């Protein structure tokens, strides 16, 4: 290798790091939101995001600039979550739409009764966040990821199918079933508080 070639070769290292950093800064809020909604608490979300970013940094040379950085990281984070975090969940994942009705109904009424004691607007918004989180945690990880990516992160079905590495038909059914499960938990709350109608 000549000196000229080695200079050319050396340049992309700093370029790569700079572009990596700028992409992280652009997407960090969305990525953290995704990790938080997957895990349900800040501690695990932070660990998950940091581990995902570390993996991304190590394999950044393989990252194709044509693909979107955030989707690439969603995929890494989702896979990590499935691999390492799923086992930690105490409660078995809900797989049937019909199965959890009774369980959810009873759990929900108790929680809503507690929250009506706290009528401030700001508190209601964070209550809604908690309620959403509880609802999401009732879903199996695949359904949860699909719903989060669609409704919170705003991805299209095609983009979600790339992240989850499955067909668009599968994405469609996961989102639909996931939303119907969430409805059981969230709808009474929404109707009572009159939120999310605007």
């Amino acid at each position: 290798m000549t000196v000229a070639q080695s200079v050319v070769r050396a340049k992309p290292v700093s370029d790569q790091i700079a572009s990596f950093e700028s992409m992280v800064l652009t997407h960090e809020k969305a990525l953290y939101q995704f990790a938080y909604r997957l895990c349900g608490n800040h501690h695990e979300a932070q660990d998950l995001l940091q581990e995902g970013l570390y993996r991304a940094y190590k394999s950044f040379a393989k990252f194709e600039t044509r693909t979107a950085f955030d989707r690439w990281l969603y995929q890494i984070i989702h896979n990590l979550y499935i691999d390492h975090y799923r086992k930690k969940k105490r409660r078995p994942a809900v797989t049937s739409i019909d199965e959890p009705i009774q369980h959810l109904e009873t759990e929900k009424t108790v929680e809503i009764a507690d929250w009506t004691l706290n009528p401030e607007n700001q508190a209601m918004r964070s209550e809604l966040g908690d309620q959403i989180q509880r609802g999401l945690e009732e879903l199996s990880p695949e359904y949860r990821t699909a719903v989060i990516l669609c409704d919170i992160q705003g991805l299209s079905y095609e983009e979600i199918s790339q992240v989850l590495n499955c067909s668009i038909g599968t994405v469609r059914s996961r989102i639909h079933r996931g939303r119907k499960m969430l409805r059981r938990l969230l709808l009474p709350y929404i109707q009572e508080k009159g939120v999310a109608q605007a």
Partner: protein
Amino acid sequence: MNCLTVRNLISAYIDCELDPDQRRELRNHLFHCQECNQEYEQLVSIKNCLENSCQEPIDFNLLEALYARIESEKIAIIPHPNGFYWGSRILMIAACLTAFFLATFMLYPLNQKSTAQNNLSFSSTGMMDQNITIDQPVNVYQASFVLP
């Protein structure tokens, strides 16, 4: 489109993921069927609820944490700085030079010059026709060629 089909497609309809024909058909159905329309309204409110959920703030520096970890593990994004190439090149040259000198010393021991001359002088009587002057210094290759 019957109610069952419509209900399976409602989420895709909400997300604008249907083709125009399906979309039109479904919209017509929702207009006329109150039950499906109610299902639609409910799922829309769930989607709105998720969309409007508050953003969780990050209270740590993501890149700082990443670099702290990398620093602790001494990982480089591209593991071959230029020094590596020049270092290996110098090593190669040094190895070649060493091999050359070793070979030279083995082929030319310091006391071999006189031995070769002695050998030549012993057999010099039969070698006059080969135009080799025995008084001149002769190296080992020439000596082995000359000797019977």
